[in-house]
């Protein structure tokens, strides 16, 4: 979307208010042992604004929304300014994928870049807040802040962004449902369910004791880190697998398109036709078929090229003379003239 500066600010602030109200609401339910961090599915909002609207609009949404949320919750409007900027960065960074030429997500590669950008956004955002705190604010006390602020913020934001942003993008049509995106999303969903089910059941099991037992809290977050790590590693692995599966199909499709256009670019099939699976067979059959079509086309083309009208002028003159130089023809010509004159 191409937006004017005024529109970017308007969208940013407008959705910032929405984000702020949601933050104010969710701040009433803080995460275990975390003084100011809540589970906030709405973190997906600035990300979506950044991706669909504009990176700067995403930044403004995250930034203003966090101010409003903190204000409502009584944390003070400006006290945790580093977290305002962190939220802004989480809206800004995923939106930057447009500068890699991605406006609609249609392939595994694009989907992978999207999800990695979301993880990066959370990492950079939270990392920024921590660094600012260490340098200027000194609210955090290490290592206890790790469990109280840093991990809760990072982990929940990653998971929420990872799950909710693709859902929203599918609904808005920014993710095209193609064979590639469908496959990678299906596998990603299975992965998320598997990882979260494990993490969730652990959480459930220790929930009662969490507040009282510091050690358990630590274990809980370690489990969470492992889960998210598994999620990320699993995701990267599935990207590789899905690409292995869909790449040949994409290439065969491209080869088919080249036949349609008449350019017969069949080299893309070289690597595939050697495979022993169904795709290899498909590629081989396609190559044969395209070869036949090409052959026929060439034959026809040759025929058309041969369509040179060659006339033996000498023979023509001789043949014409044989007719027009007869007595019959001369008298016929006379008569025809008379008819036409009358």
């Amino acid at each position: 979307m191409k937006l004017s500066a005024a529109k970017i600010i308007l969208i940013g602030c407008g959705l910032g208010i929405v984000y702020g109200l949601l933050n104010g609401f969710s701040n009433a339910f803080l995460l275990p042992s975390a003084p100011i961090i809540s589970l906030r599915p709405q973190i997906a909002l600035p990300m979506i604004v950044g991706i669909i609207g504009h990176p700067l609009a995403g930044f403004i949404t995250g930034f203003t929304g966090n101010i409003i949320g903190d204000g409502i919750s009584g944390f003070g409007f400006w006290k945790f300014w580093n977290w305002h900027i962190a939220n802004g960065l989480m809206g800004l960074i995923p939106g930057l994928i447009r500068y890699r030429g991605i406006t609609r997500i249609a392939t595994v590669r694009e989907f992978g870049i999207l999800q990695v950008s979301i993880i990066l956004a959370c990492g950079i955002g939270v990392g920024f807040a921590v660094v600012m705190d260490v340098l200027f604010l000194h609210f955090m006390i290490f290592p206890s802040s790790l469990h109280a602020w840093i991990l809760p913020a990072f982990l929940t934001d990653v998971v929420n962004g990872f799950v909710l942003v693709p859902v929203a993008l599918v609904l808005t049509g920014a993710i095209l449902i193609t064979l590639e995106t469908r496959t990678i999303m299906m596998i990603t969903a299975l992965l998320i369910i598997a990882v979260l089910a494990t993490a969730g059941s652990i959480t459930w099991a220790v929930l009662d004791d969490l507040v009282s037992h510091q050690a358990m809290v630590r274990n809980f977050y370690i489990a969470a880190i492992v889960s998210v790590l598994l999620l990320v590693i699993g995701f990267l692995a599935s990207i590789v697998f899905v690409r292995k599966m869909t790449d040949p199909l994409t290439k065969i499709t491209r080869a088919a398109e080249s036949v349609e256009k008449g350019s017969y670019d069949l080299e893309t099939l070289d690597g595939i036709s050697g495979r022993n699976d169904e795709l290899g067979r498909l590629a081989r059959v396609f190559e044969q078929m395209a070869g036949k079509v090409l052959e026929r086309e060439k034959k026809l083309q040759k025929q058309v090229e041969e369509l040179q009208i060659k006339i033996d002028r000498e023979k023509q003159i001789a043949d014409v003379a044989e007719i027009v130089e007869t007595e019959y023809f001369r008298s016929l010509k006379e008569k025809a003239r008379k008819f036409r004159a009358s």
Partner: protein
Amino acid sequence: MPKIIAIHSFRGGTGKSNTTANLACLLAQKGQRVGIVDTDIQSPGIHVLFNLDPREISCSLNDFLWGKCEIESAAYDVSKMIEPQTDGKLFLIPSSIRTGDIARVLHYGYDINLLKEGYQKLTERLSLDYLFIDTHPGLNEETLMSIAIADILLIILRPDQQDYQGTAVTVEVSRQLEVPGMFLIVNKVPDVFAHEELAVKVASTYQCEVAGVLPHADEMMTLASSGIFSMQYPDHAVSREMDKIIQRITG
């Protein structure tokens, strides 16, 4: 003055009879009174397209040429072929298909003045707007007569080497006969050919206007020479091109 339109081709089987019948029908459909004379005395065939039963033909062009009947009694009203029916009329003057009749004309020949008078009488008595003349391929004496009498000559060729050479001779001979209007029609053109380019090429080769390029139509085969194609397939590319041909040669 009614217009006499002769259709000719150097070689046989180019689609003369078919094109004649279709153009005549299309003109009649537009409300014109149109006649068709089958001067292909050696191998008459156009009557088949109009479903005219040879037994119904009591009087033919041959009979007129021998003075056995008036030309208008050899004219059969085939307006029933026009679809949808209009005020237009269509008459066919067939040649005899009896071998004796054919041999006799071929042996004795006929006089161009007689033919010309016949056409004049015919157009007057049936108040025709157009008279089409279907011819025998090649450049024999009788065919040359038809060309000499015509106001407009349509020369049909197929896009193949043998037709190209013969057409060059026909065009030149017709020029010497000072035919007032001469057009080429390329027929049975495969779809793979670029029709526009072909038209340009043919026009420049023969220095003669191309009235139309008719694609090869498989449906023509299924019609199997009975019935008029443009009446049964009015939206077919062939029919539409024929309409354009009419506009070019009459407009």
